[in-house]
């Protein structure tokens, strides 16, 4: 639905469309807009502030009602880093997210390129099968995936391995569909000129199609990384040992002990959320445009 928007015109003009000649009530409307938006924006960031503030509180202050820590401490951070497997969960989340993002960037763009630029028998049915797989909720596949992982075609078991956590997401139908849309914009003349010059078919993809679709591939990579970093249900099923947990799974397991160590959970949550938020703020323009453009959901 949002196909005809170009990245440049989404943000250039912050649409002053309805306010042209209503100067009389315009300022009132704006005033209330700003007032309401500020209040809502406040509710959007308060939970984050509470999380960060709690992560600096000593245990004795958790049950008190002070908003900011009276005696800020880094003990929670050193506890979480030294006494739990959180550094390992960090590493695991990072490896899995990078692994599947690299794979998605390559295979999705290659398949999208083929669907956009090649004609071959069976093209339509294959493409339709790829797309209909989007209709099947992943929840339906979890149990079969688990059975397959415990008794896989290659290797002894996929449970508690990086491949086992990552495999459902190494190629995505939504990514292929997105890349196909973009690759259709690659001029055929350019590809044919390359063919005449003796460039191989893979060379055409790698040196012509990929450089021309880098913005789309970039957006795909960001969404895919975010999606994998935050993925929960499959990593929960695919891992049994704490050393192999990803961050969300690890944070969920904090609670299994008798009472809830709120300061440690908030520290773990801060460590998992804050670095990503910084990255997101740096790339926000790119990400928001990407969502508006593709309708992709992380």
């Amino acid at each position, binding site marked *: *639905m*949002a196909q005809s928007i170009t990245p440049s015109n*989404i943000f250039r003009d*912050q*649409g*002053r*469309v*309805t*306010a*042209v*000649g209503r100067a009389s009530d315009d300022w009132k*409307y*704006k005033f209330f807009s700003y007032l309401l938006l500020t209040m809502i924006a406040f509710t*959007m*960031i*308060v*939970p*984050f502030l*509470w*999380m960060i503030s709690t992560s600096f509180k000593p245990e004795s202050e958790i049950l008190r009602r002070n908003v900011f820590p009276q005696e800020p401490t880094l003990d929670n951070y050193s506890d979480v880093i030294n006494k739990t497997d959180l550094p390992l969960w960090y590493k695991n989340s990072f490896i899995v997210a990078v692994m599947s993002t690299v794979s998605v960037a390559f*295979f999705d763009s*290659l398949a999208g390129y083929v669907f956009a630029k*090649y*004609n*071959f*028998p069976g093209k339509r049915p294959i493409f339709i099968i*790829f797309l209909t797989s989007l*209709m*099947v*909720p992943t*929840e*339906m*596949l*979890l*149990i*079969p*995936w*688990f*059975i397959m992982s415990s008794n896989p075609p290659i290797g002894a078991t996929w449970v508690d391995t990086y491949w086992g956590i990552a495999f*459902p997401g190494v*190629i995505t*139908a939504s990514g292929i569909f997105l890349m196909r849309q973009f690759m259709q914009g690659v001029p055929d003349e350019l590809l044919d000129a390359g063919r005449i010059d003796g460039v191989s078919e*893979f060379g055409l993809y790698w040196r012509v199609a990929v450089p021309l679709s880098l913005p789309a591939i970039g957006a795909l990579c960001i969404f895919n990384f*975010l999606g994998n970093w*935050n993925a*929960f*249900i499959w990593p929960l099923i695919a891992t049994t040992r704490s050393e192999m947990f990803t961050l*969300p*799974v690890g*944070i*969920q397991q904090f609670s299994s002990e008798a009472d809830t160590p709120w300061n440690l959970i*908030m520290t773990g*949550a801060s460590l998992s959320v804050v670095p*990503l938020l910084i990255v*997101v703020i740096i790339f*926000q323009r790119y990400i*928001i445009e990407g*969502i*508006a453009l593709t309708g992709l959901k*992380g």
Partner: protein
Amino acid sequence: MPPGVFQNMTFARKKIVWAYIFLAIPIVFFAYIRVYPALFAFQMSLHDYNPLAAEQPYVGLENYERLFEQLGKRKSQTKSAFQNTINYVLLGVPIQLCLALAIALMLNEIRVMSTLYRIMFFLPFVTSTIAIAWVFRMLYQPRFGLFNVILQLVSLPQQPFLRSTQQALPSVLALVIWQGMGFAIIIFLAGLKQIPRTYYEAAEVDGASRWHTFRYITFPLLNPSIVYLLVLQSISFLRMFAPVIAMTEQGRGGPLDSTVTVVLQTYREAFQSFNMGYASSLTVVLFALILGVTIIQLSVTSRRIN
């Protein structure tokens, strides 16, 4: 045969071969990781499938019979799971979309600081659901939780939130609405940008009020975005899992099954009780629900656009 045609033919054929070579891995992947497991899930739902047992006997439609028997009971976990899931969808989607639309309309009119607001509304959406659900769980705590602290400041009675069977579901829902709103806002803003400015200028000349402009121009022309979001958000509410497991005692969907969802129920049946056959029949019904929502909403739209 003019020269060159033969060359072109081999050229075209070469391209076909290359297309299949490039697609080989994705085709194998989709066949083995997407299509086969989906069929496997259907097949499993017809068996008494316990991975720890020696045999997985074929039981026909028994799992489905059991499922509908549970739904027919006055109270059962399966029934609660379906009822709650439907409540999440019917309450969550309209509230979330109305809020997002109101915010998008306001954002669309302001210039100063609009990027800053946009980032703030958007941050929860890119945050790990598990991490932020634990933060909300803390905010909902009695005595030291922020919400009860605020209630006390304004001299209102303390609330049990997640500890009450009545308040737990709305409390979980509030987090999900809060977290997913940023996505809907961005889609609405993109939709608003699509509406030609001339329509508003014409309305202006006719002296239409703000409400009339919204009612007769913005809302109808925003229809594609609304339907897109209705489908997408309904599906994501139907699939709710992480917020409930993170916010309830031992991830059980309590108190007294008041927040349990179909997916949580599936997870518990499959991976805690190892009733994988019955769990598969639950996922098949979930699949049917998702398919139904998509088809109904798509057919409603195409009619309205005609």
